[in-house]
């Protein structure tokens, strides 16, 4: 019976003069979110509200699912709109609505009318009372509870009358594109897609960088990352994925740097390359999936040492998360299944049996000094030969 949805947005409602920028971004993201859903939709803003109207036959469940993935939406209310044809007509419709949506269930309810059109003949309180009465008469199992009702029936009187009583929680956050752009270091693991999702949720457009090392890593490992970015894009919108061939720099480090420092030096160079790509793309921050203490390269000493090469802010939204918390989100956003496929990525290929867990910055810098010249050259080639894929 529902042909429309009222979209509730929280935080962005607070944004003073920029409000329309946020609302426009949200409208755009809703259209993007609905592009693969069966049916034709119109998204409109009016009087501080955003509505999604189905213009054709559509799939209700798919639509709701798509809307719950759009950042910036706090709640989605399936809604019925009718023309104003007098109060009696409205009352009859409301009685019919309650029956259709709730049957003759035992429940408590409250009518909440909003008279945005002030020339409507009845006042809000009066509307509440009379509609409540109508419902009580029609359904003996329903009772009024004005403090903690099971069902809050909202009736909004504008040019048309909107009726809704359910609110499905949205995923919150802010619409993509309202908060600049950041470069995500995306591996094939569980953490980095979650980190990207969390930053995207704050309205940040995500671009991603992946390091592969053929033939040590396979085409399938690369495909896995493309698949992950594609899954993320259901939330974030299209993701431009930069695929960096890291084989030569990695082999050079492997042959010329102290073995136990391998990972930390490699990560420093990855950050450098990612930052350079980020600058090129207009990103203003890097995003990683690091979580404090999870592995040798994520101790506080290691993070200090890798962080030192960057001038941009590095966002690590998972820093205080336990693995299980991360997995829970990964499952929710649908990246987990792909993340656990068993293909090696370049972080797992050349690892020392006993890597340093407490690297000391000046020692690492000294090791790097010896390989610097050649590494700069190799990294430049890696950046110049980067392959990009738009994942959506």
């Amino acid at each position: 019976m529902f042909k429309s949805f009222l979209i509730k947005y929280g935080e962005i409602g607070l944004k003073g003069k920029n409000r329309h920028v946020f609302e426009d971004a949200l409208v755009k993201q809703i259209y993007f979110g609905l592009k693969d859903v069966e049916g034709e939709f119109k998204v409109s803003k009016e009087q501080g509200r955003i509505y999604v109207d189905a213009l054709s036959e559509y799939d209700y469940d798919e639509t709701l699912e798509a809307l719950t993935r759009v950042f910036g939406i706090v709640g989605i209310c399936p809604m019925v709109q009718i023309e104003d044809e007098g109060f009696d007509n409205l009352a009859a419709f409301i009685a019919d609505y309650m029956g259709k949506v709730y049957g003759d269930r035992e429940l408590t309810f409250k009518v909440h009318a909003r008279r945005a059109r002030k020339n409507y003949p009845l006042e809000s309180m009066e509307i509440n009372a009379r509609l409540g009465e109508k419902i009580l008469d029609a359904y003996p199992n329903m009772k009024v509870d004005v403090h903690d009702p099971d069902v809050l029936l909202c009736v909004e009187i504008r040019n048309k009358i909107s009726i809704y009583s359910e609110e499905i929680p949205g995923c919150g956050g802010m619409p993509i594109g309202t908060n600049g752009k950041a470069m995500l270091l995306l591996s094939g693991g569980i953490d980095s897609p979650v980190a990207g999702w969390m930053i995207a949720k704050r309205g940040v457009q995500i671009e991603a960088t992946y390091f592969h090392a053929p033939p040590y890593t396979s085409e399938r490992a690369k495909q896995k990352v493309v698949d992950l970015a594609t899954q993320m894009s259901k939330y974030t919108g299209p993701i431009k994925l930069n695929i960096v061939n890291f084989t030569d720099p990695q082999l050079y480090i492997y042959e010329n740097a102290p073995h136990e420092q391998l990972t930390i030096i490699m990560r420093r160079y990855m950050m450098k390359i990612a930052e350079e790509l980020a600058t090129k793309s207009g990103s203003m921050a890097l995003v990683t999936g690091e979580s404090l203490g999870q592995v040798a390269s994520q101790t506080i000493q290691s993070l200090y040492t890798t962080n030192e090469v960057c001038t941009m802010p590095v966002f690590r939204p998972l820093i205080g998360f336990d693995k299980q918390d991360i997995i829970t989100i990964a499952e929710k956003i649908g990246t987990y299944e792909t993340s656990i496929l068993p293909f090696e990525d370049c972080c797992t290929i050349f690892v020392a049996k006993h890597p340093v867990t407490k690297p000391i910055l000046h020692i690492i810098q000294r090791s790097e000094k010896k390989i610097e010249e050649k590494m700069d050259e190799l990294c430049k080639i890696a950046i110049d030969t980067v392959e990009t894929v738009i994942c959506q």
Partner: protein
Amino acid sequence: MDDRLVYLDNSATTRVYSEVAELMCKIMTEDYGNPSSRHTKGIEAEAHIKNAKTILAKLIKVNEKEILFTSGGTESNNLALIGVTEANKRAGNHVIVSDIEHPSVAETAKRLEELGYNVSKLPVTDKGVVDIAKFKEMLTEDTVLVSTMFVNNETGAVAPIEQMGALIREHAPKAFFHVDAVQAFGKYKIYPKKMNIDLLSVSGHKIHGPKGVGFLYINEKVKIKPIMFGGGQQNGLRSGTDNVPGIAGLALAAQMIYTDFESKIAKMYALKERLIDGISRMPDVYINSIRGEEAAPHIINASFLGVRSEVLLNTFVASGICVSAGSACSSHKQTVSSTLKAMGADIKRMDSAIRFSMCEFTTEEEIDRCIEVLEKELPMLRRFVRK
């Protein structure tokens, strides 16, 4: 298709003969009837099935009614193991399978164990060949089923089928002998009745036929129960609408693969030697397959010590060569089934094994290309072994 692509993964699957594809296409678009239907279209379709049966029965010298069509190797193996044990419960409780079976036998055997059967695992020698002396000791009055593969899919080792058949007749009179011939059919002439084989599994897509179809030869004296139930097709032993195009394609492929048979096999053996000669010249290589005609003509398994299979595989991919990792065991996967492990190979050998598998279309140029890539890339790859 890229002309330069070298396909040496024929044990995984093969290219379908164009004649087979054409025939199947014709059946799908013209003779599309259901053989169970009693009208013109149904009769047409039934004729294809009848014809396929005649061809296959003749090829392996059995009666037409002893051929049962299935969806391929896995179903044939499942039916053989589960169907036979279930129908012969009262005859005995003991089943023997070899240590190097394909998962469709190994996993089914595990299931039999769960159901309460006593399953013995027959060990193999360091060459991957069934240990015949141990086999003899395992046979008992209580043995109802022995299952072994004819040609091992990972190494090409050949089981002493005739000897095993004879021993079964002598020492386990109640046992039926099932042979998984998925890798052997088309490479050996197989006559179940002369080899004491009671059940034989064959798959279409390993012999340039279609995927999703195969057959199980079941000697008429074998007691067997169905594992799928439904419309009662194939005398109630395998319900489900007959896969007419698949069955016709399977039979034509079988006929074609056994045409000019001797010369095809001789050519493959020559190529096998050529490849083994080529890679034996390289340092730190271990050939896991048996050389020469003691083993199958089309499978060569070799370990390139110090280079992980996955890495070498990726290198081959970049050079347009398709091969397989030689062992089902990898660092991130749990061991599924590893013939090399059963042969007592160490981790280094298992970790670096590659399987090359040929078919009648394989050429000298392809083999040489393969050797060339190895000669060029191995030194580079070995520079970066894991410390």
